[in-house]
């Protein structure tokens, strides 16, 4: 779409016979927070590095502001990167690290000092300018790496698993701070992560990647509610993937026909249903619930809810995350129960 800040068109990167990127096309809007999500080896870092200029694509184009930048060297690109291991210069103080970018632009000294102080305050590190990176904790180094990048006011900030090395508590706090910073600065963020919760918590849109391709791109809700493949359904959140046959263009589980249209899906299709959408007991009257018979295998009390593992007549196990209620509380191990969910919560995925 014209007017997008970044356009990635048919990007391919081959290392010998292996394609790290296999035809990736993504557009990123000005000011957007896009997460590139996928397991290691899916190509997300390679994609980020081709935007930064450290990877030369085999085919395709990277455009920023309508201009093809394939041949622009990294130091002339309007992007800055927060590296995974921070990559702070160990022989420079925090202030010198942050001033590295502005100095390259030949900014006057007084102005640099002012900007460095401003940015350090913005990331909550004012007063640390004279320290060396080795004197800082991991979380503090992370903040300096961030400050060093945003001081240059890039059009795009690239973040390569920036919170990966931090402990869970600090990570959660930094997620909130990063998100706030993104709102404050109005800079476009492209954020690489393998942590789906992190992507859901922070990003405006998520591009789920698999084997060098974009499997699905959309808002967190889109991808969570309406995954387009088994891979995406399984990668984001938890999913029950029920193998079904297709009879007369409709899903069928054993003898029971399910009210899902699966025309064009072939002989088999998968029904995806999230555990928290499944309820136990008799469905309420009205609406169009899908009801299945099952046997309780295991039941785990989680405090606010129960987690029930139940076996379908076919032997397949499905998990339900069900709020306390009479039906759940008294469902003993081995008991025959009924499961139901609103029809529109299930999704048919082609094989």
């Amino acid at each position, binding site marked *: 779409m014209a007017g997008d800040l970044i356009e990635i068109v048919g990007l391919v990167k081959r290392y010998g016979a292996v394609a790290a990127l296999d035809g990736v096309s993504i557009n990123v809007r000005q000011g957007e927070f896009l997460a590139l999500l996928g397991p290691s080896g899916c190509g997300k870092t390679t994609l980020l590095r081709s935007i*930064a*200029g*450290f990877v030369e694509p085999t085919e395709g184009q990277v455009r920023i502001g309508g201009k093809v930048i394939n041949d622009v*060297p*990294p*130091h*002339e690109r309007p*992007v*800055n*990167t927060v*590296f*995974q*291991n921070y*990559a*702070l*210069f*160990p*022989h420079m103080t925090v202030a010198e690290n942050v001033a*590295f*970018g502005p100095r*390259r*632009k030949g900014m006057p000294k007084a102005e640099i000092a002012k900007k460095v102080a401003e940015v350090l305050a913005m990331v909550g590190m004012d007063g640390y300018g004279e320290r060396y990176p080795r004197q800082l904790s991991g979380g503090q180094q992370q903040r300096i790496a961030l400050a*060093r*990048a945003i001081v*240059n006011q890039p059009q795009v900030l690239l973040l390569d698993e920036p919170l990966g090395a931090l402990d869970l508590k600090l990570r959660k706090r930094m997620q909130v701070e990063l998100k706030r910073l993104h709102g404050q600065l109005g800079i476009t963020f492209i954020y690489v992560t393998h942590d789906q919760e992190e992507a859901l918590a922070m990003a405006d849109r998520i591009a789920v990647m698999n084997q060098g391709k974009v499997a699905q791109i959309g808002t967190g809700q889109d991808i969570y509610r309406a995954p387009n493949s088994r891979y995406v359904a399984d990668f984001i959140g938890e999913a029950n993937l029920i193998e079904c046959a297709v009879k007369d263009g409709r899903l069928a589980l054993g003898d029971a026909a399910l009210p899902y249209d699966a025309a064009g899906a072939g002989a088999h299709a998968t029904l995806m249903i999230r555990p928290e959408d499944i309820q136990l007991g008799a469905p309420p009257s009205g609406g169009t619930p899908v009801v299945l018979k099952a046997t309780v295998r295991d039941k785990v009390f989680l405090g606010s809810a129960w987690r029930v593992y139940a076996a379908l007549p076919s032997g397949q196990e499905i998990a339900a995350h069900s709020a306390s209620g009479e039906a759940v509380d008294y469902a003993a191990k081995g008991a025959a129960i009924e499961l139901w969910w609103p029809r529109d919560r299930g999704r048919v995925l082609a094989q």
Partner: protein
Amino acid sequence: MRINPWSAVLLLGVPVAFLFIFFIVPFGTVAVASFRMPADGGWSAANYVKIATDGYYWGALYLTFKIALWVTLLVLVVGYPLAYTITYNVRSTLLRRIIYIVIVTPLFTSSIVRAFGWLVLLGRKGMVNDTLVALDFVDKPVQILFTEGGIVIGMAYIMLPFMVLTVASILQNINTSLLEAARDLGAHPIVAFLKVTFPLSLPGVIAGSLIVFTLSVSAYVTPSILSGGKKTVMSMLIYQQYAATLNFPFGATLAVALLVSTLLLIAGYLLVIERHAKG
């Protein structure tokens, strides 16, 4: 890491004992001998007075350090780019290993043989002069052999592996993401080298130059062959006293003088570096 005290005694004791027997004791003997008079065996500081007051010895000391300094600079100028190229530009591991072997192999050859090799190369009818004349750089063969320049060239060749290996081992340990970060922040490759790679490789440069300098100061074989007797460095003087004149006490005095002045120079060098690093 905790180790048991007996292991610590053993680990420390063996090298300390070795150093004591083979370095401290002989050096003490030499230092004591330097205060004896060759004529009557009495005690005196006359040997030191002789060195301090005779310009000839100051000249030899000056020449020794001058040659060692030029060798160090030449080795640095040639060795650093070589180490850099091996580390960053040679992608193939096999090729890199071959280059290392080529660099290290000359160390397996006697320095006498290598010095005679340079006699052949640097002579008036040697390959270097033939090439210079053929390429019209000079009209007639130039005198390289038996000059300070000739000694410097021959010694630099011998010292090169020490610099290359020391610098390369430091360069290898510089995280390449630091260079990417510099590029990412707007640094041209040359600026990235000057601001990041080079400062981080300084420990290698300092260690390499110290090794090369001290080895050059004490080198004997190469300067004595390549000088053709026309230039005299301290090691040659010391050898003369011990082997030709048989004036052991004076030879000992020269050796102590060389050691002390070398130590002073190195201490000064390290002091300057430390100041600079802090300032």
